[in-house]
């Protein structure tokens, strides 16, 4: 009987301790914490901008009109006298912050190609959209890698089994040939699961639409991704100097 009572007490204490530990882990004690609508949020990617009037470039200029920039309210009298009404920049960001895009290297040297020995090289894409509610970067090639003089090409890869300009696939076999790319880092498409997943570039010569390679809906000052180019040729590939151009178009959200 005495041991039975001890067991009941121990079990009850265990149940209480379990509940208390769980609640303590989440910061809840005897009373609920108040709900704070404006709790401070910080992020290593964002900088909270202080209001700052930017009187530099970007504000409207005209030699024919008295220029005014209205923010917020309509200005009916102003519109009828000038014939227009303009807002520059984003309403919720008090200073006009430029939108920027950087590629670490313009020329991607694919080296001296050896049959069934894939050649890879990388570059970094960086987007600064501190002045925009999001952005996107699209990519496309003017044509597959080609010898301009002869027209001989290295086709876009089909990976080990299949891949396209919109869906990545595993490309790890040295007996699968072609040209493609992999991505890693911020704001990249979700089908680049790991470093073995590759896509083709959208080919403008056959009217394929440019593909999104980076995209976000949030403000960010430095969003970075790494793009890895890969090319592999067969033993029957004709020799030559193969070239193409990858166009990257970076545009902020509206």
């Amino acid at each position, binding site marked *: 009987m005495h041991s039975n009572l001890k067991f009941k007490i121990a079990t009850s204490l265990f149940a209480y301790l379990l509940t208390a530990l769980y609640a303590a882990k989440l910061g809840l004690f005897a009373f609920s914490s108040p709900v704070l609508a404006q709790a401070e949020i910080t992020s290593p990617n964002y900088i909270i901008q202080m209001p700052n009037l930017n009187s530099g470039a970007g504000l409207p*200029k005209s030699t024919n009109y008295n220029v005014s920039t209205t923010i917020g309210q309509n200005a009916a009298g102003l519109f009828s006298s000038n014939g227009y009404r303009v807002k520059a920049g984003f309403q919720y960001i008090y200073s006009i912050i430029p939108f920027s895009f950087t590629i670490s290297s313009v020329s991607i040297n694919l080296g001296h190609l050896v049959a069934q020995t894939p050649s890879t090289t990388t570059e970094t894409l960086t987007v600064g959209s501190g002045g925009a509610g999001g952005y996107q970067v699209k990519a496309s090639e003017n044509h597959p890698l080609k010898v301009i003089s002869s027209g001989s090409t290295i086709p876009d890869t089909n990976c080990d089994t299949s891949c396209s300009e919109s869906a990545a696939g595993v490309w790890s076999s040295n007996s699968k040939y072609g040209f493609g790319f992999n991505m890693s880092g911020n704001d990249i498409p979700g089908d680049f699961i790991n470093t073995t997943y590759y896509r083709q570039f959208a080919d403008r010569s056959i009217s394929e639409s440019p593909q999104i390679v980076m995209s976000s809906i949030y403000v960010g000052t430095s969003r970075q991704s790494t793009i890895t180019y890969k090319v592999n040729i067969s033993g029957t590939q004709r020799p030559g100097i193969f070239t*193409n151009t990858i166009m990257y178009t970076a545009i902020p959200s509206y």
Partner: protein
Amino acid sequence: MFIVVCLEIGICCLKFAKPTFAQEVSLSISPPITEITIQPGKSFSQTFTVKNDGEPVVIVPAVLPFVPLDKEGHVELVEDQNSVTAFAGWFTFDPAPVSLGTTGSHDYYLKVSPPAGAEEKDYYFTFIAEVQNDNNLGFTNSQSQVRVGANILVNVSKDGNPQKKASIIKFAAPQLIDSFTGLTYEVLIGNSGYSFFKPIGKITVDQIFGSTSVLNLAPLNILVGGEREISCIQGENLIPCKLPGKFLIGIYRSNLSFTIDGNGESVEKQIYTIAFPFTILFGLIIVFIFYRAVRKSKS
């Protein structure tokens, strides 16, 4: 003699070594967006500043129409020649290539002039600065070409008061949640009017017999005929519309309310969510079952 031969081989290797072309390209453009309401037949000049923070480049400008790509504010450039030519008379700017050195910048003066007979509606464009390069490097390579853009939203209107109309396509949150999972809202607003607008408003969350919280909507542009997912805003940061707090319990009445550009009647919708500590209850049940089982085995 041996040293001379080695030196000569070394010099030859250097001479025929693969050239390295680091050549970082880094462009910025400002302002990233311009919104214009303008009478047909009138003109307005906007200045776009393009700055180069990388290796010297040559850039050329262009203006291309765009259509909305998705519900997140991304654009789809329309680059077919007919569409571009259709608006050729609307824009005046210097198309000549410009050489930009490192840290160099250039101001493009873009004059926007909708013709007198332009239909009163929205027109959307992107001002593009494109880096020019050629690929005559003499070895197998893939060359990167860069374009950066800035969006221009144009509403042509004779009186400056185009009809604007909004609708709440979706305002949703789970009806039943665990107390520890948090409460996140989805807001999707549509534009069935004749001009782009921004929703100015908030989500007010009343905890029945508790406190009130407010989430401010981000004033993001919604284009004509389109829909846009609206996030919330804190300061200058866009954030998900999520109720702060680690533990929620009770009934929450959430009211979405906004006006078009801060004017006129508000558009509203209300939903309810019940938060209950299911995980705690589940844990207690497990403990109780365990206790009963042990007690049974003892007896």
